[in-house]
C-alpha cells in the first residue's frame, strides 16, 4: 500500500506568517511623566531661561511711632538656564526589502523608531536626574551597607526633607473606605524606582508599605504604580538607574528619585520633537535604491526646583537571583 505523506509530498510553501507581530519588551517610561513640560518657541535661541523670584523678608518688625519708613528691600531672582540639544536616529532600507518583504517593514520600523525616540527622551531625563539631583543614602535598612536597603524611616526622612523644603506634592490623599484590606493613602510625592526593588517593597508590607492593590480606590493610580509608603507613591520601571556593584560593600546601588512638582522640567523647541522623516529611494544615489526612515527631536532639561527632589540611594535586602 502506498500512502502519500508529507515526507514525499510536502507543502509547497512551508511557512505562513502569524497574523500579529509579537510584542517588544519595553520599559515603563516614568521619568518624562513627572516632569514639568515647557516649549521653547522657534527662533528662540539655544537656551531656555527660567526665572524664580526669591522670597522677600517678611516685615516682622513693627514700625513704631517714629514715622520713619523701614529700609527698602531689593527684590532678587534666581536664573536657571538649559541649553537645547538635538538627537536623532534612522534606518536605511534598500528598496528590495520594501518590494519583497511580506510584513510591511516600513510600518513596523516607523513604530520602532517612534518608541526609540520616546525611550531616549526618558533615558536622557533619567541620567540627567542622576547627575544633577543631590543624594541621600538609605540608612534605615539592616544590611549594613552604604547605602543600606530601604527602611520605612528612609521614606519618612526624604518626605520630611521635601515637606520642610516646602515642595509641592503631586497627588492628593485617598480617603479610607469601608473595603476589606484597604487603607487610606496620604497626599504624596512620587518616587521613581526599579522593578528590582519590588521584593523589598513587598517586604515592608505591614511596616508602612501599602500595595497599590490595597488603595481604597485605584482611580488615581498610574499604570506603573506599585504602592506607597507614607507620603510617597512608588512608580517602578525596569529602566530605573542602577549602579552595578557600586555600594560600599560591592552591591548594586539603586537610584530612587523622589520629587515634587516642578522639580524637573522637560523642554522642547517648537514641537520639534515630533519629526518622523521618510525619504523615498528617489533621493538616494544614482539608482535610487535606498529609502530612509528617521526620527529626530530636540530636548533640554533643567533642575527647576532643587529643593523638591532627592535621589534616595539604596541597596537591596537580598538578591532576587538572575534575570
Amino acid at each position, binding site marked *: 500500500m502506498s500512502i502519500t505523506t508529507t515526507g514525499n509530498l510536502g507543502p509547497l510553501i512551508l511557512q505562513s506568517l502569524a497574523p500579529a507581530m509579537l510584542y517588544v519588551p519595553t520599559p515603563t517610561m516614568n521619568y518624562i511623566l513627572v516632569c514639568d513640560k515647557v516649549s521653547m518657541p522657534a527662533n528662540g535661541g*539655544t*537656551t531656555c*531661561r527660567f526665572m524664580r523670584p*526669591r*522670597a*522677600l*523678608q*517678611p516685615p516682622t518688625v513693627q514700625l513704631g511711632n517714629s514715622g520713619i519708613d523701614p529700609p527698602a528691600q531689593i527684590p532678587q531672582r*534666581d*536664573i*536657571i*538656564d*538649559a*541649553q537645547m*540639544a538635538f538627537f536623532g536616529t534612522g534606518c*536605511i532600507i534598500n528598496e528590495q526589502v520594501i518590494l519583497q518583504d511580506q510584513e510591511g517593514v516600513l510600518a513596523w520600523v516607523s513604530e520602532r523608531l517612534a518608541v526609540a525616540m520616546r525611550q531616549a527622551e526618558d*533615558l*536622557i531625563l*533619567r*541620567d*540627567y536626574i*542622576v*547627575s*544633577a*539631583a*543631590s*543624594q*541621600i*543614602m*538609605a*540608612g*534605615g*535598612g539592616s544590611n*549594613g*551597607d*552604604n*547605602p*543600606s536597603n530601604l527602611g520605612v524611616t528612609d521614606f519618612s526622612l526624604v518626605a520630611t526633607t521635601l515637606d*520642610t*523644603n*516646602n515642595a509641592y506634592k503631586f497627588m492628593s490623599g485617598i480617603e479610607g473606605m469601608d473595603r476589606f484590606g484597604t487603607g487610606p493613602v496620604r497626599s504624596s510625592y512620587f518616587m521613581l524606582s526599579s522593578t528590582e526593588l519590588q521584593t523589598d517593597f513587598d517586604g515592608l508590607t505591614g511596616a508602612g508599605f501599602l500595595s497599590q492593590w490595597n488603595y481604597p480606590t485605584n482611580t488615581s493610580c498610574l499604570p506603573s504604580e506599585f504602592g506607597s509608603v507614607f507620603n510617597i507613591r512608588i512608580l517602578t520601571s525596569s529602566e530605573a*538607574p*542602577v*549602579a*552595578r*556593584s*557600586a*555600594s*560600599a*560593600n*560591592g552591591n548594586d*546601588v539603586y537610584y530612587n528619585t523622589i520629587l515634587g512638582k516642578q522639580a524637573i522640567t522637560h523642554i522642547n523647541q517648537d514641537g520639534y520633537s515630533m519629526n518622523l522623516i521618510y525619504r523615498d529611494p528617489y533621493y538616494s*544615489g544614482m539608482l535610487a535604491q*535606498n529609502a530612509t526612515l528617521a526620527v529626530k527631536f530636540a530636548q*533640554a*532639561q*533643567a*533642575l527647576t526646583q*532643587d*529643593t523638591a527632589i532627592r535621589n534616595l540611594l539604596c541597596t537591596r535586602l537580598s538578591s532576587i537571583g538572575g534575570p
Partner: protein
Amino acid sequence: MAEYSRIATGSVTSNGGQTLVILPFTPNFIEIFNRGRAVAQNGNTTTTFCITKAWWYTDMGQTAAGYTQTTTAGDYTGWIAPTGGTSSSIPTVVSGTGFTTIQAALALQYGPVFNNTSNAFSISKANPAVVTTSTAHNLTTGNWVIFQNLSQSATTGMQQIAGIPFMITVTGATTFTIPWNTNQSNYTAFNTATSTGNVGSFKQILYPVLYAPGVSFISAITTGTTTTVVTTAPHNFVQGQEIAFRIPQAYGTTQLNSLPNLVIPGSPIYGYVTSVTNSTTFVCNINSTGYTAFATNQAFANYPGQTFPQVLAVGDVNTGGYLYNGGMLYPSPSVFNGYVSSTTVGASTINGPAIQGAYYNATFQGFIIGTGISGTSTDVIDYRAILSDINS
C-alpha cells in the same frame, strides 16, 4: 566613497595616557601617526617603547591595535591584543592598551574591576591618599574611579570613602592619588592582599559626566570671608554658577546648607561661584567665617547609611557669553568629562552656542587612543577615522 560612510581626520594632543577623540560617529577603522614619537625615535633600539604609527579594525576587538615601531635597526610591526590576549614582545606592550571606540550616552557604566585577583592594590594613609597597584593600571590623570569593600579588618580600613567618585592624578605606572585626606585617625591603610576577605576593589567610571553642571562631592572646605571648596572630581562649575550645599551633620559645616533659612523661613540660601581655581576647586561668595570646620575624619563604624557632603548647581547669574577676546563669542560649553588630563582647560562639547552656567548635554562619541599607543604627553597625533559601509 560610498553613500553612507563617514570619514574624519584631524590631530589631537596626547595627554600621555588615554587620549579622547570626539567625533560625530563611532568608527570601525582608525589609524594614527604620532609626530612626537617620530621625532623622538632617533637612536631607539628595538626594545625601546616608541610607537609612531598604529591602526585598528573593528574585527580586532576593543582595546587592540596594530602598530609600527621605528628603530635604528629598522621598522617593526607589532600587535597589541585585546585585554587578556597575547601581544607582541618587541617592545613589551600591554594587552588592552590599544584603541577603544566610545559612545558616552548612558550613565553608571564602569570599566574592568581592579581587585586582589586581577591587579592587587593598596591605599596609603596620606594626604592625598596614594593608590598603588601591583601591575600597570593604565589609567590617566582625569579618569574617575570608585572604590568598594575597603575593610582592612572588621572594624578598620577606609570604608568611609567607598562609593565616592574620585578623579585620579597619575603619579606613575602603578600609582595614582585621589583627592582625600586619609592621613587621619579614623583611617587605616588598606591593602587587598591582607584585608578582610581580600575583596577590596576599584573600577573606572566610564562616562562620569554626561550632563553638566551637576552634583559633586566635597573633600575639603576652607572657611573665611569667601569659601573655598575642593571636590573629589570635576565640578564643571563656571564663574557665576549658583550653587547649593548639602552637608550632613557629621561633616560639620552645615551652616552652608541652603536650608533651613532662619531669616526668611522656607527660602533657600544659595551661593555663587566667584572664581574657579581648577577643575576640582572653586571659591564661592558665602562668608563662612566662624562656621563649623569641615571634617572628613569620619568613624569607620559609621559608614553604613552615611550620606556624603555635596554641592550642586542650581542656576547661574551669567547673562550670556564671554568677554570678547578674539575667539568665538559664544563658545560651546567645555567639560571635564573623565578623559581630560588638564585641570584648567576642559574638552569642548559639540553643542554650539551656549550661555555659561546653563545645564547642558555633554554626551559624546568617538574613540580613545589607549596608553600603549598614545606616546608621551604633548605629542601631536594625527588621526584618520572611518565608518565604512561594508565590514564583512
